[in-house]
């Protein structure tokens, strides 16, 4: 890390500290926590774009899958729902997978000719209806079990931090499927494929109530850290808070956030260390060789497609991990909250602004852009107050301007991205 890089990090730290002094330490810590998660997402995208030039615009989908991982691992299982239709849903899913696997087999085994597409179509249509015949009643049964509170299978009731790994694995699995299809074609179709799959994942999460309650959301996820209420009842904690001269309620929220920050920071540091080590290893050198001259690397016998698939899966898994952490931090899983601008393109802004191909840059971008994302609104509101102070109260224009402040953040993100691309195209911390 050069002195310039270090000073950039100091500036971001100062910005967040300023939030602590001027607004509240609670908001500052909230920015730190989401900044840590954003940094991890940015690391994931940076692996794909920075190391391999892969254009993933479906980050949202992997993040959401991560969240699902946390839900199905940590939520308590809903026994009656399992009894009502659990095995049946699972066998339906197995049937679906079997149908597709069978279709692929058929395609490979049969000879070319008019018979092949015909047989394939019949197979797929029959498989689809069979699948629906097994699947639909099971889903109805599950969703009928106390729909206001559960109406889904629930999770496995395991520790939530295990769910982070599961989230990463789910994202990796999805990435394997997409990568296998999109990177395996004659040309590379990853961009449109990821864009599409992200929308599909969100559609599934919104629609399949038996899995994650759909738009009814899953709330009250278990935590890896203590609850504020418990802290406020613990005599020991109250005594310590008094010693520090803090209000017990504030002290408890700060403590919880600090716990999260600690866990997240450890994971972020571990990931940075891992990816830096990997990048310096022969594997990393090969990745860069492929990126800088694919033809030459291919001529040297490097399997470019396999390497691309590998790094695409790794990067997506990191995004999934970040998604699971985020869902845990929020304590709830809300499928409708996943929007491409926030979860795909904002992460891209982080990577580009921070510096494509540089892990420290991605981390810096994650913190900086998240800071702006949060703070543009109050800053904009303040600006608008000043701008409109001359106008008469209640004038339609003034009301409109004040109401529209919320949308300033999108505009600002665009401006930041364009300015960086124009005047510092390699980002704040360039690759070296």
């Amino acid at each position, binding site marked *: 890390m050069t002195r310039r890089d270090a000073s950039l990090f100091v500036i971001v730290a100062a910005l967040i500290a300023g939030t602590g002094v001027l607004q509240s330490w609670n908001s500052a810590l909230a920015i730190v926590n989401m900044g840590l998660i954003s940094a991890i997402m940015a690391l994931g995208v940076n692996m794909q774009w*920075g190391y391999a*030039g*892969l254009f993933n615009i479906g980050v949202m989908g992997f993040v959401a899958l991560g969240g699902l991982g946390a839900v199905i691992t940590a939520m308590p299982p809903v026994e009656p729902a399992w009894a009502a239709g659990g095995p049946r849903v699972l066998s339906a899913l197995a049937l679906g997978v079997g149908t597709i696997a069978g279709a692929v087999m058929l395609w490979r085994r049969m000879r070319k000719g008019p018979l092949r597409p015909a047989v394939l179509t019949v197979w797929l249509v029959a498989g689809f209806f069979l699948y629906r015949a097994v699947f639909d009643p099971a889903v109805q049964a599950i969703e009928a079990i106390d729909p206001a509170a559960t109406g889904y299978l629930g999770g496995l009731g395991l520790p939530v931090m295990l769910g982070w790994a599961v989230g990463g694995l789910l994202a990796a699995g999805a990435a394997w499927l997409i990568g296998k299809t999109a990177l395996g074609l004659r040309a590379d179709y990853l*961009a449109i494929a990821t864009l599409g799959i992200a929308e599909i994942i969100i559609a599934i999460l919104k629609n399949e109530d038996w899995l994650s309650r759909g738009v009814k959301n899953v709330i009250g996820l278990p935590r890896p850290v203590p609850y504020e209420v418990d802290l406020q009842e613990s005599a020991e904690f109250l005594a310590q808070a008094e010693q520090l001269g803090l209000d017990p309620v504030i002290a408890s929220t700060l403590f919880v956030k600090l716990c999260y920050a600690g866990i997240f920071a450890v994971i972020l540091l571990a990931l940075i260390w891992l990816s830096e080590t990997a990048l310096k290893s022969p594997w990393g050198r090969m990745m860069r060789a492929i990126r800088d001259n694919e033809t030459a690397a291919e001529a040297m016998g490097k399997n470019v497609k396999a390497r691309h698939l590998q790094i695409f899966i790794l990067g997506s898994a990191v995004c999934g991990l970040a998604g699971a952490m985020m869902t845990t931090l929020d304590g709830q899983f809300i499928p409708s909250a996943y929007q491409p601008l926030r979860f795909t393109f904002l992460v891209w802004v982080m990577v580009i602004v921070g510096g494509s191909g540089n892990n420290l840059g991605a981390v810096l971008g994650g913190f900086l852009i998240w800071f702006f994302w949060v703070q543009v609104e109050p800053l904009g509101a303040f600006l608008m107050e000043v701008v409109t102070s001359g106008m008469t109260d209640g004038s339609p224009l003034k009301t409109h301007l004040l109401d529209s402040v919320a949308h300033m953040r999108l505009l600002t993100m665009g401006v930041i991205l364009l300015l960086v691309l124009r005047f510092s*195209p*390699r980002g704040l911390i360039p690759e070296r």
Partner: protein
Amino acid sequence: MSGNPYQDDRGNKDRTITNTGGSEWTGAVRSGGRAERVNGDGPFLIGDGMTGGYGTGANILQDCTISVERGEIAVIVGPNGAGKSTAMKAVFGMLTLRGGAVRLNGEDITRLTPQARVARGMAFVPQTNNIFTSMTVEENLEMGAFLRRDDISATIAEVYDLFPVLRDKRRQPAGELSGGQRQQVAVGRALMTRPGVLMLDEPTAGVSPIVMDELFDRIIEVARTGISILMVEQNARQALEIADKGFVLVQGANAYTDTGKALLADPDVRRTFLGG
């Protein structure tokens, strides 16, 4: 990583978002300077003592001189990598000259962009990608005459007279034609500006010997109408046979310069470049 950060695509090959069909020129003279009249007689077109290379790269040409008189055929030959095509592109303004000058018809045009040179009567047929494959033969010719605002039907008829097969295929996409026919379209397109000089970069690359002879005959016909021809050729012997003047280049510099006949007769040239 390339030097220009805007040109670093990190090896991305995603065709759903990017189209690689863009410009491949790297070192073309960018913003145009102006042409200046120069005193004294000289050849119709001359690249005089040219030294330079592509973009900011190393010099490929070393004090290289290429010229052609009005209505004559000049041919550039030489071994692979001698800078034949580079010399021609230098005359056309497609690389950075660090020394020397290009003069056309008594004007110094060294600082003109390739497009401006087209407007002054130079026509260039690149070796590859020299037609609009998705457009019909006739549309290719129309695009060749894009700068002209007068009636171009007479010129189109002239091109069809020169290459009769194109008249039959004028409604066909040029990309569907055979290799030799494509070259005819390419030459026809270039003739549409009614140029003073026609520059051809290996026009016979990849065509059969019969088609090659046919093409050379046409080129002689074009020269007879008063258009100067400057041509780079891989088939040195056949090219020198029709050439009024020949330039043998070696490593970006002039090795031999003489009439086509004299070069064919020169034992040194024969031994070194024409295979005995």
